């Protein structure tokens, strides 16, 4: 019993990602002498901080059985609102508050259409992707707005502890919060239940619509927050900020073992997948690999990471059939899905 639990854990998605991560780090160390530079380590997180933030909430949304393609546009809108208000004489804090509110509002809109009108989230958020970016365009047109106060940009650019800016720690805090909420809270349980079987969850007295609206609102909120990080990091905002981020975000979440049909995946897996992708890309950047090839490598990894365990499992099953006389030798069946929301209970 104990042994098979250990087996199950070793065969889990998270373990696989961990192994991949180790390989990636090892290769990076071999390829580049600069990989371990403290500045570079900070850069790994720092340069993708907005995507990392959005990955956290996207994991919730996808586990819930929905998708949010509008995050990058809400992010741009958030950054735009913040910058425009600052330009108009508001304080950064007030601008940020309004940006976050706008993000919440966009998320609310998405959520209402998805939950109460019953339109597939793919379509709603695709319209949102176009529309919210459009709103940002209306606000800033072709202008770029910057000249933020030094303290604000230094939040996004300068080291807070060592070379790590404060936004990195913001991410870390949100990651832990996300992990606790998803894996251990009632809300997280609801997210899983609805993602797996919405009807059963509703029969169990869970208000699925409310949960969905909440998730989309949080998604909008985090996206707007990411927008603020973007403004601080680049010190300047344009309406075209973050175009095309959503696909990267979704890729990372899926690599983390979250099923696109909802219901499965863990925050730990998503965190590991984020580390894998960021380190992999960083390593390739240091080796001057071009963007397309980088994406191809991540794409191949995405496929292989599912394919290889599947093959291993089949091989194992084949072997165990050959040794059918001694079933204890191999742990057969049962582990068809390496990841399951129930893993938190074990």
């Amino acid at each position, binding site marked *: 019993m104990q042994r098979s639990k250990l087996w199950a854990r070793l065969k889990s998605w998270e373990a696989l990602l961990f192994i991949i991560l180790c390989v990636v780090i090892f290769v990076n160390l071999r390829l580049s002498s600069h990989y371990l530079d403290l500045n570079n380590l900070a850069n790994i997180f720092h340069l993708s901080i907005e995507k990392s933030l959005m990955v956290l909430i996207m994991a919730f949304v996808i586990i819930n059985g929905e998708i949010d*393609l509008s995050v990058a546009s809400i992010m741009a809108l958030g950054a735009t609102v913040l910058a425009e208000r600052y330009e108009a004489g508001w304080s950064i804090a007030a601008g940020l508050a309004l940006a976050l509110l706008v993000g919440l509002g966009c998320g609310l809109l998405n959520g209402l*259409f998805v939950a109460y*009108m*019953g*339109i*597939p989230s*793919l*379509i*709603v958020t*695709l*319209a*949102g*992707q*176009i*529309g*919210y*970016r*459009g*709103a940002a*365009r*209306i606000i800033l*047109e*072709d202008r770029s707005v910057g000249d933020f106060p030094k303290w604000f940009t230094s939040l996004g650019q300068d080291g807070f502890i060592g070379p790590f800016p404060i936004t990195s720690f913001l991410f870390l805090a949100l990651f832990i919060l996300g992990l606790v909420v998803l894996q251990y809270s009632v809300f997280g349980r609801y997210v899983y239940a609805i993602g797996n079987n919405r009807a059963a969850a509703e029969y169990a007295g869970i208000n699925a619509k409310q949960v969905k609206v909440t998730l989309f609102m949080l998604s909008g909120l985090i996206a707007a927050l990411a927008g603020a990080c973007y403004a601080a990091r680049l010190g300047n905002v344009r309406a075209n900020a973050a175009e095309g981020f959503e*696909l990267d975000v*979704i*890729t990372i979440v*899926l*690599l983390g073992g979250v*099923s*696109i*049909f909802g219901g499965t995946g863990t925050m730990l897996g998503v965190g590991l997948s984020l580390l894998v992708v960021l380190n992999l890309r960083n390593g390739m950047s240091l080796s001057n690999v*071009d963007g*397309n*090839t980088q*994406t*191809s490598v*991540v*794409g*191949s*990894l*995405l*496929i292989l990471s*599912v*394919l290889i365990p*599947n*093959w291993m499992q089949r091989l194992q099953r084949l072997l165990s059939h050959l040794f059918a006389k001694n079933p204890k030798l191999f742990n057969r069946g049962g582990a068809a899905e390496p990841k399951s929301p129930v893993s938190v209970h074990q």
Partner: protein
Amino acid sequence: MRRVRRLVPLQRLRELSLVLILIIVIVIFGNQIDNYYTPRTFNRISSTVALITLVAVGQTLVLLTRNVDLSVGSMVGFTAYYLGRHLSKTEDMSPMVLAAMAMGIGGAMGLINGLLVAYGRIPAIVVTLGTMAIYRGALVRYSDSKSVATRELPPWIKDLPQETLYKFGEYELRALPGIALGAVIIFFFILLYSSFGRRLYAIGSSPEAAHLAGIHAPRMVTLAFTLCGALSGLGGMVYLARFGTITVEAGRGLELQVVAAAVVGGVSITGGSGTVLGAMLGAILIGTLEQSLIRMQINEFWKDAVMGLCIIVAVSVDRILINQLTPWWSRTELQRMPEEPHAEV
């Protein structure tokens, strides 16, 4: 009522509702834009939606099986480039051979997707997100980031977009929309009348039930992906004919437009329902919105926002229409028969 239901099954309701919305949209824009009701507008829109429609037909096949193909844009781009490069090197080539080649290349890429999904047991979105990047990467490698220029192409392919198949007054059915329409018609009948088509629906509707019913899902899924690839390949040829200049960026972002067209057209992303007719109507609806907005005299910076709004409004109206009409159509009485033919034995 019963008769109406028989004549117009629930599945047709979706398309009816879309046609209705399309008419509303056209009337609204017709009031706003001068010279809107002209053959030109028709020709314009039909030419623009040809590519999306063609690929959306393939996408529909895949979506029906509860999968998705995000690599279509890359397949279109790769095929377009490959064909262009090939044409620039060879003397002459008949259109049919080129089309076959296009479908062959696309089909091969689709086959890889299909095998990975069906036999590698990897979720389609994972596979095709991967191959989307991989095929694009392959294109970059193959092309060495160079472009195909229009001047390298033989005249017939450059003239294909203005080829007219059928003229109805000044309304023209041009070659490219003709290809798309052909694909829609063929696959409409395949999906409706062939057992292959019905089994695609079955697989997507309930994979477990399909398994129990002894349907060999992997083969069907692979075939659906292959067909989707082949149609994307054909789409690559259309792309080449239409734009002439092919860079490594050709077709990027197409996947979302295509999925959007299909889903707006009532194809369910969770499989099992939808038709290619719907997908075409979805493509036309989005194409009409886009083309009409181009002609509206509104601030450039407002256009995206208006477009987003238009899509969500159109889809919402569609949803409301369907919700209102569905209860009338879908009633299933579990009744006892008046007499009991097998009552005693």
